[in-house]
């Protein structure tokens, strides 16, 4: 999926440019991108950290 990285990055940048070019009355431009980026990093980080404590190897049968 290496090919998808530059495409998705370009789409994200393009959407921020669109927001700056045509601002709406719905918040500060770029906030959603920052929130989504920081949020996804934080979620994966928290989940993996919790996983170290809470996950056990083997399938959960009951």
């Amino acid at each position: 999926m290496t090919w998808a990285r530059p495409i998705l990055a370009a789409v994200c940048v393009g959407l921020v440019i669109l927001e700056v070019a045509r601002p709406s009355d719905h918040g500060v431009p770029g906030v959603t991108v920052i929130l989504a980026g920081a949020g996804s990093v934080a979620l994966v980080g928290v989940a993996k950290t919790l996983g170290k404590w809470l996950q056990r190897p083997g399938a959960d049968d009951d």
Partner: protein
Amino acid sequence: MTESLHPGLVLLAAALLAGVTPSPWHRAWLVIGPGSALVLIQRLGNTTETTIAAGVIPLGIRADALAYPFATIFAVIACLAGIYAWRASRRCQVAGLVAAAAATGIVYAADWLAFYAWWELLAIASAVIIHDGIRPAAGRAAYRYLLVHLVGGASLLIGLAQLVAGRSDRSVGAVELGVPGVLILVGICINAAVPPLHAWLTDAYPRSSAAGAVFLSAFATKSAVYALARVFPGLELLVWCGTIMALYGVIFAVLENNVRRLLAYHIVSQVGYMVAGVGLGTPLALAGAVAHAFCHILYKGLLFMAAGAVVDAAGTSRLDELGGLRRVLPGTLWLYMIGALSISGAPLLNGFVSKSLIVSAAADAQRPLVAACLTIAAVGTFLSVGLKLPVYAFGGARLTGSVAPIPASRYVAMSMTALLCVVLGVRPDWLYLIVRGAETYEPYTWGHVLEALQLLSVTALAFVLFRAKLRPTQSTTLDFDRMYRAIGRLVLRAGDRVASSADKLEAWALAAADIRLGAQPRTVPTVAYSVGAALVALALGIALFARS
């Protein structure tokens, strides 16, 4: 005041007829029952009050603007789930109709006693649905489910008994937080799966049958959301409970390897949005909570339908064992993606409309932290339901062995549900005809659509970057249910010791009286203690209710 048939009783009659009609004709009741109930619900509308007496239980109907959308969607999903369950066991079909009847009864209940009766019927019907699932784990999960809900029901009953003590008015309505209010809140929060009282949900739903999970996902938590909106609108505590639920569910979903447990964690998360909306209490937030419950029942039903079809076809529910299904189940992939994009809040789908209603209501109420947390929860939703699950279940080429065909009835049910998700996403004004209070809200503004697209594209980029960390592995995630089971084992062990001590005392007493004991030692089944304790709590509640 008008006279009308109770839609819940119509569904109960359909369940009874589905149980006694010879096969395969009994299946007709799966459509006729909910269809008739839906017609009655539309006739009742949202401004009707009727009274129907049925023995000691007063069956007054209050069909107001809050009850109408819940009753409508319960009848719709009962019909769709009935089609999906066309080839399921008769026990699952009958219990599904009873659960639909009970959920409809809850939303129309005008009297606390009727409310409680329907509430307990829903718990029993849901336990039967779970018991019908994958053996032997389903039997044990159903037992645990029943225990948790008996405790919740006892808390609710004791709270209601204290609430109505000495009052002539027993009509269902808003309650202040006092001792009765807290007991009622705990009882409802158990059904709403508010952490740490949520463990029953992620324990039981993955162990039910494919059709059973569709019925379960629709009724239990959503009737609790209705109850919260009816009894505790604007309660500040619920704002934070809901926000924590939204984040808690997605964090555990990211860790999950079991397809249906992953979706079960997302019920916790999505119900969190509704609970937060109820807690915010503004007209827009309440309308958002109801609209989200309405839309959630559709897209979550679709997701459980597709996941159940995949699990039954592939013979495993573990993501690390799935893969490559896009080639053999392309139709299921497309239908699943409609549900996944809808839950992620993608434009042109119903989840976009209802989710943005709640987030906007939080922003309008000057609660930026709540709005930010709910937005981050939406990121986690797309990450796990919209990307991780389809990439690892349908992508790649790992699955070995044959894939069983999916019955046509399941495709019909999934297609109809997906169509409703799209229609309500494209025409939110049709949703507003059912859910009152959001008519002034316009979801398709430049700002809203751009925000949603930014959120989805950044999350997709994050998934591509962190894909190695999100790879499913064969593992068991410990949640609160492990703690409850450990406590339960301790209680049972303590009960065993008390019983054995009592036996010894009895033996000593008999020996002292010089009476010979029988050859067989007496043993008390450990299950009896927990059921007995729950029944004692229930009896206490009933006694208090009777006294009042």
